[in-house]
């Protein structure tokens, strides 16, 4: 009944209280803004990225023009891309940082660090080094600082050698720390014979090495014919601690390079057994080994399934070697193409439908239960709410029929920096209401008190147009939003700019965290606002396909991290590798 009556109610109100409705403090001129007409909801239709780029360009142009007229014109960055798209957070951060002009300071600091001592570009004699030390501003820890500097600048190895000879003559010995740094220098410069020399010297002088030295030796050895000597070193590391993925990557790389594929796979299985996440480089070398050895098809496919199960994305170079491997497969003819995900749930290049982002009934139930037990109740129910309030809320959710949209009232209200918070909330609620959706607004009780931010006339209108639940002022309202949205079923979305990371972290295991993230990507409606003379807002599009490694036997679709894009953990890549069998 509700939705069918409310439009008339608001219509009615409009005529009876024209002052309230038609004269908002900051008016959003609907006929003026074409964006406004196209405020859209998920699964209806979309603003494509192309359109959006046009809008953005227009906006920038307009902004530039107005800026020339008026220097103090407000600047608001518009983020067209989804908050879950790779690189958005970085870009946002950069815009804010360029605004606050901190860069100048940073630059200065870097400059200061780089100054001071200058390394010679050719080997010096002992006397010359001695001279250099005496002339240095600060002779404390001179040796270490010089060596660090060489390491930073990847200095010529002969300079380092002459320096070590000077230190040996001067102090009678060369410390472990200096040798270690020299070793690092040799390894980075790929000077194999020097690595062996250092190994012999250090082996004879010290009984054991720390992990850093062990790692460097392994790395040095794996580049050469003596790669097998890295295996016992790996064993010694294992005795005291768990080797790092980097160590494994080096050894596997060495094994593959010298054709011992069995060892490489044995080591790879060991990584999986210990529960470490392998390095990208490991996968790359394994796929490259597969080029020559056709017997490992199943094992290499298992890597792809591993990525799928753990929602890991390969980087660009791995994606390239995967593509090369598929195209070289004997028998089936595979064709690889690079594509980008379009919001149409269909692969751009091969028109195969991508996996849906919807959760199954069982997953939904699980997620709902976990949100209740781990996020809302947690270890101590009093930390986020009180038992009485929770009961009230449960009863409220049960009484009311399923909602279509749940709004994070405070978050939405605070997206504006102009005008009243309540005004903004009212605009959003009305827009959603117009679509005929059943809206729930969650807020805190202080919103119901007349103040300069919360106009009670707006609040009463909101309460008429939507269902409302106001929690106590000390209660965290986000978990309630999640629960209400999950309780209402698969069609229900929630509006918030909050990425809910702290609530995701409450989930008991990584599988549940991934499930939560999947649901969030499919059901979170993010509001973009910007000021262009007036306040505008628009909802970001919701993807309806899952960004994960996927296959349907005749094709593989692999999302990968493109080079130069900094992806945060709460973002998903936008580039795809599409592989199809002919």
């Amino acid at each position, binding site marked *: 009944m509700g939705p069918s009556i409310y439009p008339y109610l608001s219509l009615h109100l409009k005529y009876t209280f024209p002052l309230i409705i038609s004269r908002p403090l900051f008016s959003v001129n609907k006929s003026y803004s074409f964006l406004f007409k196209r405020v859209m909801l998920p699964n209806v239709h979309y603003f494509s990225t192309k359109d959006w780029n046009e809008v953005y360009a227009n906006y920038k142009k307009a902004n530039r023009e107005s800026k020339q007229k008026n220097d103090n014109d407000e600047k608001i960055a518009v983020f067209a891309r989804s908050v879950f798209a790779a690189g958005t957070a970085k870009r946002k951060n950069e815009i804010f940082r360029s*605004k*606050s*002009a*901190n860069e*100048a*300071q940073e630059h*200065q600091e870097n400059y200061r660090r780089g100054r001071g001592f200058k390394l010679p570009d050719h080997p010096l004699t002992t006397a010359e080094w001695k001279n250099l030390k005496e002339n240095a501003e600060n002779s404390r820890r001179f040796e*270490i600082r010089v060596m660090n500097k060489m390491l930073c600048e990847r200095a010529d190895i002969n300079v380092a050698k002459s320096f070590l*000879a000077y230190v*040996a003559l001067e102090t*009678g*010995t*060369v*410390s*472990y*720390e200096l040798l*270690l740094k020299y070793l690092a220098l040799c390894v980075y410069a790929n000077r194999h014979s020097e690595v062996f020399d250092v190994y*012999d*010297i250090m082996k*004879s*002088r*010290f*009984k*054991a*090495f*720390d*992990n*850093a*030295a062990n790692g460097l030796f392994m790395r040095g050895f794996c580049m050469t014919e003596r790669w097998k000597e890295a295996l016992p070193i790996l064993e010694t590391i294992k*005795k*005291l*601690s*768990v080797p790092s993925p980097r160590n494994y990557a080096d050894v596997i790389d060495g094994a593959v390079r010298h054709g011992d594929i069995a060892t490489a796979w044995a080591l790879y299985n060991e990584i999986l057994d210990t529960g470490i996440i392998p390095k990208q480089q490991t996968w790359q070398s394994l796929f490259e080994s597969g080029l020559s050895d056709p017997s490992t098809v199943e094992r290499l496919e298992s890597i792809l399934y591993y990525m799928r199960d753990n929602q890991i994305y390969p980087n660009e170079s791995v994606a390239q070697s995967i593509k090369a491997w598929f195209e070289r497969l004997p028998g089936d003819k595979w064709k690889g193409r690079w594509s980008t995900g379009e919001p149409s749930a269909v692969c751009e290049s091969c028109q195969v439908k991508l996996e849906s982002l919807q959760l199954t009934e069982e997953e939904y139930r699980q997620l709902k239960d976990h949100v209740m037990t781990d996020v809302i109740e947690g270890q*101590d129910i*009093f*930390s986020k709410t*009180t038992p009485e309030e929770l009961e009230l809320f449960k009863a409220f959710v049960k009484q009311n029929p399923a909602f279509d949209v749940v709004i994070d009232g405070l978050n939405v209200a*605070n997206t504006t920096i102009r005008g009243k918070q309540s005004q903004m909330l009212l605009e959003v609620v009305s827009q959603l209401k117009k679509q005929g959706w059943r809206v729930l607004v969650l807020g*805190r009780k*202080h919103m119901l*008190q007349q*103040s300069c931010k919360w106009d009670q006339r707006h609040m009463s209108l909101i309460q008429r147009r939507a269902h409302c639940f106001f929690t106590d*002022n*000390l209660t965290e309202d986000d978990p309630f939003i999640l629960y209400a949205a999950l309780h209402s079923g698969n069609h229900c979305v929630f509006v918030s700019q909050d990425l809910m990371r702290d609530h995701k972290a409450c989930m008991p295991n990584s599988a549940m965290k991934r499930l939560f993230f999947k649901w969030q990507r499919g059901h979170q409606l993010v509001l973009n606002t910007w000021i262009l003379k007036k306040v505008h807002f628009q909802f970001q599009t919701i993807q309806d396909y899952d960004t994960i490694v996927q296959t349907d036997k005749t094709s593989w679709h692999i999302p990968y991290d493109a080079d130069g894009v900094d992806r945060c953990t709460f973002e998903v890549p936008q580039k795809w590798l599409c592989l199809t069998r002919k």
Partner: protein
Amino acid sequence: MNAVVANIVSNDETTQSIVGKTTVAELQLQYSSPSGKTLQVADTNLRFPTLSNPNIMHYEEKGKEEEALGESGEEAECSPLAATREMVEMMRQAGRNVPEHLSDNDLLSLQEHTTKTARKKFLKFLALKESYKKARKQEKEKRKSESQPQEEEEEEARVSLNSYLITKRGRYLNSGCKWRAAQAMLFGQSLVFDMSYEAVMNQRELSNTISQLQECLTWNKRSLEPFHIHFCNLQPNSGYKRELTSRYGDSWDNLLITATEQRHVDMFPHKQLVYLTADSPNVLRSFDHNKVYIVGALVDKADQSSVSLTNAKRLKLDTARFPLDHFLQWDSGAKNLTLDQVMRILLTLRDTGKWEQALEFVPKRKHSGFYPKNLVEGPVKMFTDVARMKFKKRAKKFTFSETGSVRDAGHKPLTQPGVRNVFKPKQFMEPDGKAKGRKNWGG
């Protein structure tokens, strides 16, 4: 054949005497090979130190030493403890921040840390502790060597001090303090430390808590009119009790405080209790001499949000926080204070009734000074949002032009001055819009 073997053995003995060591494997090699070769092996063995370090002769000394060390440790190699110790030693040589000496207990607790980062942090902590200890020791020695002649002079001065005033010190003063504490226990205002947070702290935090409590007791003892201190919820076999008894020893029973297993809610009337917690939405405007204030005995170094507020909510107690951002220019950062700071603030506030004096005990590094007096006087002014906003805008311009620093405060979000509720009736209460950060002053 016998002669040959004898020859080998003798040969071997000489080798041993020269090089200092020969491994069993080498011996076996010698026995199995014909005599001519044996000599050769022995020969190479003789030259071993020079061979491995062909270039730099001075390695020899150190190298032998290291090897000798290694030899003695070889038997212990199987035990992971010795191996860990060796690893730590190598890390120290590599310039990492690890301690020089490790006790067996330290090693055991090092192994309890499962992740690499945890181990690294633990070692760093030990190294820091060691360096403090060393510095203190050095300072002590320095002072000792410097101050000996001075002390004698002081001694003379003390003897020659001729006055009609009888000097009282030491034990006498102490008994005076005790007298006051005893009076406080009979008639004084109660102050409760809630000792129910053992579960949320680790061992290190717990021992820090006890140190802070000790300091609290000292400040209380020295004040002219001490509080009657209660340690509530102190279970007999809890970590709190264990630490306290290990620190105080026998004198624990003679302390003039009330330590009980009872809950504070059972001991005092519910209306009298006020829980002091930094997360509270309410601000403590003035000190009430009839209330019983509760402070949570808690140190939270890890990120835990509103532990004590949660507890107060559960017990349905009134809560309050200090008006830190009403008097101090607080940019950002947590507003949690240590227990001894809270104690000194409360003592001063009770004695003087002035927040300006009491809040002197908030660490200076946390804020950039008090608001100017004309604004704070008649605190009504400062307790409004608008007043603070205006002040902040003015202050910002000032700092910018004065220091000429690049850091432009203008781009930082304004710290929204909270509490518009102080001089308003209760229905206008509104929690601060700003995330207050962690505000547990152990309370």
